[in-house]
């Protein structure tokens, strides 16, 4: 019986020889390569096995012209199949290279206990796992906050240990170097506010209130929030990536074995830098936003520049301004905490660093919006 490759691509040939009783001799000929659509081992065996009991499978590869991994896969499957049927295989007739490679594949027995369980856990199990990991994440966050707080206390008693030069460097990175992007975004936010406001206010002929609207919105809310969101994307991610990479390189372990708390040395200067710089950036964003509003108001709504200036001064109270600054400070600390937390929790691979940076931005923005809501409600209750 001769089985060969289908149709035109007649590259491989398999001839079955049952001339010896209880021995199945397989003549392999032609090209046994991955591309030549090799037969399935089980099929070949079943078709051949029709003529009575087989004790031994042997091979003849005299006509074999070319082979690659395809032949190995076929043979491995064949051997597995014969083992299952308690038939011995005699590999002597195969090319030496094939025999050696087959020996390699069986040299180390498959580690059964190492296989990951591929089974999909049930819905209930997944809910349980998610709940457990959520509560663990909560505990980790609280532990981190506690450590950070202790670190701040150590700072006040002068026991916190970090390099002052590090602090200045971070101050520069998070402050001065963020000015261009903060300028652009907050100016445009001012423009947008003025536009949207003008459309509505024009219906009542109250265009001049655009100045009030932009002024109050920027100082109370948008200045701090836009600056904070920029910082979450820019600085929070950078913090997470820096600390994460240090985690991967064992640099944080090296600090720990030297008894230098990473909290003091790495996290504290970053928190301080953002806590100092965020209110300044917030005020700067307020100014640029008001400027953006003024460009629209003066340029398109025909308000006089003096009038716009005067109205803005009238509209913004010290309390609006203070509310913005308080918010900016809180956002700054939160963005730093989100970035440092994710960085310190980072795993030990380069993929983990990417995940940490992403997670830092998401966490930072969630922190900002949630705390903003809380602060707005609190200020409202206080009549602030």
């Amino acid at each position, binding site marked *: 019986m001769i089985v060969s490759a289908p149709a035109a691509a007649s590259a491989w040939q398999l001839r079955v020889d049952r001339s010896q009783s209880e021995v199945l001799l397989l003549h392999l000929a032609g090209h046994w390569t991955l591309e030549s659509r090799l037969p399935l081992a089980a099929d070949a065996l079943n078709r051949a096995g029709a003529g009575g009991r087989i004790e031994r499978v042997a091979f003849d590869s005299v006509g074999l012209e070319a082979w690659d991994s395809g032949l190995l896969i076929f043979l491995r499957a064949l051997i597995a199949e014969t083992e299952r049927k308690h038939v011995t295989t005699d590999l002597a007739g195969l090319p030496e290279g094939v025999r050696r490679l087959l020996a390699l594949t069986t040299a180390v027995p498959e580690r059964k206990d190492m296989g990951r369980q591929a089974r999909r856990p049930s819905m209930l199990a997944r809910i349980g796992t998610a709940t457990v990991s959520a509560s663990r994440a909560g505990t980790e966050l609280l532990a981190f906050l506690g450590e950070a707080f202790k670190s701040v206390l150590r700072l006040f008693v002068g026991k916190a240990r970090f390099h002052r030069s590090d602090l200045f460097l971070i101050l520069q990175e998070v402050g001065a170097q963020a000015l261009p992007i903060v300028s652009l975004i907050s100016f445009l936010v001012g423009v947008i506010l003025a536009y949207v406001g003008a459309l509505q206010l024009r219906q009542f002929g109250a265009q001049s209130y655009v100045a009030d609207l932009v002024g109050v919105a920027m100082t109370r809310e948008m200045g701090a929030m836009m600056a904070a969101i920029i910082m979450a994307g820019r600085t929070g991610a950078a913090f997470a990536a820096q600390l994460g990479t240090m985690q991967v390189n064992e640099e944080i372990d*090296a600090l720990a*074995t030297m*008894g230098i708390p990473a909290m003091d040395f790495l996290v504290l200067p970053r928190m301080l830098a953002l806590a100092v710089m965020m209110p300044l950036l917030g005020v700067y964003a307020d100014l640029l936003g008001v400027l953006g509003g003024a460009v629209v108001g003066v340029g398109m709504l025909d308000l006089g520049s003096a009038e716009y200036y005067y109205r803005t001064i009238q509209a913004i109270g010290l309390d609006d301004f203070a509310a913005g600054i308080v918010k900016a400070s809180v956002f700054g600390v939160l963005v730093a905490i989100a970035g440092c937390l994710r960085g310190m929790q980072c795993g030990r691979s380069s993929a983990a660093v990417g995940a940490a940076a992403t997670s830092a931005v998401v966490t930072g923005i969630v922190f900002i919006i949630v705390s903003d809501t809380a602060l707005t409600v609190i200020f409202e209750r206080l009549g602030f």
Partner: protein
Amino acid sequence: MATVGEVTTAPGAPTTTRIEVRDLDMMYGERVIQRNLTFTVQRGDIFVIMGGSGCGKSTLLRHMIGLVEPARGDVFYDGASFWGTDLPVRERILRRIGVLYQSGALWSSMTLAENVSLPLEEYRDLHGAEIREVASLKLALVGLAGFEDFYPSEISGGMRKRAGLARAMALDPDILFFDEPSAGLDPISSHLLDDLILELRDSLGATVVMVTHELPSIFAIANNSVFLDAETKTMIAGGHPQTLLKECRDPKVHRFLTRGEAEE
């Protein structure tokens, strides 16, 4: 996780015992890494933790230097319990220890001199100029004189390893831990590093514990060892590597020490 809280000293420990690991179990969550590890490291030893890949060698090292708390058991330094005490005591013990990490783990935002200086600034009452001098000396000891102001990213892997060694020696530690010191080094650099380790041990009188599976290093410099097995999840042999090679009957240890060539 409970550790042996009451026992603070190892009764009957001979004075030459530097480190004692007793009944140590290591787990990652539910997964057991190694169980029942008990061995001692004598003063002046070059002690090797060996075993196949993934058997928990580096994890054992991380337990010994205080980075991971054991699931059970304790580590004693000069008879004093490490995990059974509170943080300040642990930190005091750690100050006598220098660690060379697998990747060098130099702080990448600092120059080599600053890397070596940081522990000195923390724990030694020295002036800036003196610290700088000590840092230069330590760098010169490992053959990196003149590289004080280089950043870790500007030097080769072998140099980073040596700079890491300089930092590990900054506080003149009694005990040095090495995590795969010759990983990623060419044979000559790795040989030079071995010589350096021997030289430092002899001149500083330090005790060296290292994780490695480099046979040439093991036979060249180690005088004591423990062999961890990934399958049985415990130590299956220990002692002088040469003696192990001659006398150990365990086929796994024998295969490891002969690179699998002398199958019986």
